[in-house]
């Protein structure tokens, strides 16, 4: 058990890697009444083709998400109900890269944690329950088809990536999920829900030693094999297609643009790339940036505008978008902003202010148990500690940020997805 105290932010992190390979991170918050636990596997919608015992195996789109739905079934009931009946709020999500199960509770934490560890590591599927779930997930797939922010995102993924399955919807399609059987689910659970492919993050009013002890007692002793994955052929740094558009019942054009970037695989290098990238985005497009304030005042952007740096399934990308009556105008302004930075460089004052504001935004994350648990899980899978950001940020220089912008925001790297009103 490794205990680190972060003086600047007055937080303690307890880390442990169990003999079976499970990584555990715990941040005790004794003043709070709630606790949050997240049990995640490094397995998501993009992990469709993988190698086991020298054999490549293909699975239909949507298995990871389907598993997420079905994992709550236990031989003696439903874990969602068990947790909820104790007043806990359980839930789960599947991204392209990970599947995470979590709960928040204000009492019976250890009992709830026991339930979490138990249902996620116990597969229980029947042909009937799988068939029924096909109906429920089919509804979910249809529901998101009416959601413009989902459609604009999914379309952009198809633009950016030529090969990587992140270009497909995490939930799959009504057709692809029809191919999923209880056997597919048992198989993929066996392959990807091994302790060595998983992590447990806990934030809250908890006793770290008993958390570790429980994980040790309850989870399999064998680490299991971590399969090699195939995300398709190597992607170039350019988008597969530069623009895509669709029409939907929306009030005004919705847009999302983005660029792929070469992800640093892990460790400090990854953390530094994240901080540099997030400062770069904030500086370029944040609330006080010349770009945003000018376009906001001109009526080209409104408060729906958002941006993010996202790492998933071996990819990294920059995304930005919102609503605009003149998307082409926004893109022209963005390109000229980049050209301006290329010729004039970044303002040192703006950089200093942005660094302070980024620091404040990281402090805010410490108050969100779910965001904090997720960043611990992301860190566990890529071998860095998110709390190191509070020190690391001091060593990021203006030229790091300038280089990041010049490398990743060149016009030919950008792809654009637009949803227009009918």
């Amino acid at each position, binding site marked *: 058990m490794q205990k680190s105290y972060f003086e*600047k*932010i*007055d937080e303690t992190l307890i880390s442990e890697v169990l003999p079976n390979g499970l990584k555990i991170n715990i941040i005790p918050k004794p*003043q*709070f*009444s*709630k606790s949050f636990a997240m049990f995640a596997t490094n397995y998501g919608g993009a992990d469709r083709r993988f190698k086991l015992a020298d054999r490549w195996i293909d699975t239909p789109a949507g298995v990871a998400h389907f598993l997420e739905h079905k994992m709550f079934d236990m031989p003696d009931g439903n874990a*969602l*109900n068990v947790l*909820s*009946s*104790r*007043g*806990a*709020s*359980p839930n789960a999500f599947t991204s392209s890269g990970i599947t995470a199960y979590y709960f*928040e*509770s*204000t*009492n019976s934490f250890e009992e709830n944690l026991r339930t979490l560890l138990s249902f996620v590591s116990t597969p229980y599927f029947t042909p009937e329950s799988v068939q*029924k779930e096909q109906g*429920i997930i089919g*509804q*979910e797939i*249809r*529901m998101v*088809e*009416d*959601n413009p922010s989902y459609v604009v995102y999914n379309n952009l993924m198809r633009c950016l990536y030529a090969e990587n399955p992140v270009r497909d919807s995490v939930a799959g399609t009504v057709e692809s999920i029809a191919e999923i059987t209880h056997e597919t689910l048992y198989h993929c659970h066996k392959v990807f829900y091994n302790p060595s492919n998983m992590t447990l993050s806990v934030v809250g009013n908890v006793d770290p030693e008993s958390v570790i002890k429980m994980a040790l007692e309850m989870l399999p002793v064998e680490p299991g094999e971590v399969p090699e994955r195939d995300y398709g052929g190597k992607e170039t740094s350019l988008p597969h297609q530069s623009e895509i558009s669709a029409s*939907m*019942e*929306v*009030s*005004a054009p*919705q847009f999302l643009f983005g660029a792929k970037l070469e992800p640093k695989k892990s460790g400090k290098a990854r953390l530094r790339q994240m901080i540099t990238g997030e400062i770069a985005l904030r500086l370029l497009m*944040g*609330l*006080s940036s*010349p770009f945003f*304030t000018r376009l*906001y*005042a001109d*009526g080209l952007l*409104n*408060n*729906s505008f958002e941006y993010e740096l996202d790492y998933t399934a071996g990819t990294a990308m920059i995304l930005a978008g919102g*609503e605009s009556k003149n998307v082409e105008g926004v893109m022209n302004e963005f390109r000229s902003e980049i050209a301006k930075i290329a010729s004039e460089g970044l303002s040192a004052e*703006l950089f200093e*202010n*942005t660094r*302070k*504001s*980024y*620091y*404040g*935004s990281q*402090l*805010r994350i410490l*108050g969100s*148990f779910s965001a904090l648990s997720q960043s611990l899980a992301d860190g566990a899978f890529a071998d860095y500690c998110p709390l190191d950001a509070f020190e690391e940020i001091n060593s990021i220089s203006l030229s790091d940020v300038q280089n990041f912008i010049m490398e990743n925001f060149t016009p030919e790297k950008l792809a654009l997805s637009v949803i227009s009103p009918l």
Partner: protein
Amino acid sequence: MNSSTELIMPNVVLTCLQTTKFKTGCLSINLLTPLNRETASKNALIPMVLCRGTSSLPDMAAISSRLDSLYGARIKPVVRKKGEIQVIGLYANFADEAFIPEESSILEQITSLMGEMLLMPRTQSGLFLREYVESERDKLLELIRGRINDKRAYSMQRLFELMCAMEDYSTDRLGTESEAENITAAELTQHYHSVLASSPIEVFYCGSAAPSRVKAALISALAPLPRSNEDPEDMGTDIRMNSLEEKPRYFEDEMQVTQGKLAIGFRLGSCMEDPDPASIRVFNAVYGGCVTSKLFMNVREKLSLCYFASSSADLHKGILAVSSGIEFDKYDAALSEILSQLEAVRRGDISEQELSAAKSSVASDYRTVEDSPVALEDFYLNQALIGPDHSPSELAALVEEVTADEVVQIAKGVECDAIYFLRGLKEDN
């Protein structure tokens, strides 16, 4: 966690929660105004225009850069609908000084900036800048028109609009397109001055500073606030106990969508004569407010009639609403199942397990309020408007006392008033 409440100026009430629990603090200044169709858009526009520029920080870039230098503090315009009261104001969230070694007066700097934004906006010849008003008005119109983008929220808004057509509650928190379209700088400035002078103000702070320090900072920041010593106009929410007609009214809209949205509105009825939030919340949780509820377990899980079905209760207005996403052809089956689950609660068909799960869920919701500045802020604002005078943890304890019989009594008083369905275009079906 102790709250203290004090009248710091005429009709300005400060509620303070002093705690070292959070890394970020919050401060909100809220003006309470009556919600109605004529003024809702104007009221909503005020805080948005106030965030555009002040006498010393002339534009958004200047304000944002000032906030960045205060370690990424944020001040946002806030517009809330609490029953038939429209609450407008500014909400700040900022790093607690304990974690910023170089700064010891973030609280004072934020308070002073909020005071300046509220009371000393950038003006020209005494009026709000025309450019700012028009730009924010256009953005408000975009928001109002953009409501159709989220079909679930839109269906709920349409339900309330239609169900409460004769009540102020039908007005959305942002008002209507037709009212917003015509707002001018002159008219808005005049309205702003009258709202500022006449509205009761609720200020909320949560963070490590002592109440005396918060009070001093506010009294200095709000010194120019026009205040009359007269009692402000009476404001409140008209609670209708019964449905409008004997049978529920049916409404429907068509849109190009793949999934239908069914929204059902009820009057909570006699329990609103002396509303007990603990038991009403437990009733809602038994019926449709949590994942062990009857709606979730039966309509979604057992019968697979929908992807989601849940209920929520508005204690300000005494309304219960069910929201559900369904296939178009499941309309009759889903509607009848949703209503029959309410019948089951009325009959007292509530297992020991259902009741205890509902109670745990509601109690836990109350307890977690104390773990979040944002939730605390909203909780104490609600408390200022409708009471009761309990802390979240006291309410959590009261929830444990709720009996099945109390839940049944509430359910018996509930009346279905209106049913709204957002369906696909006819030719598509």
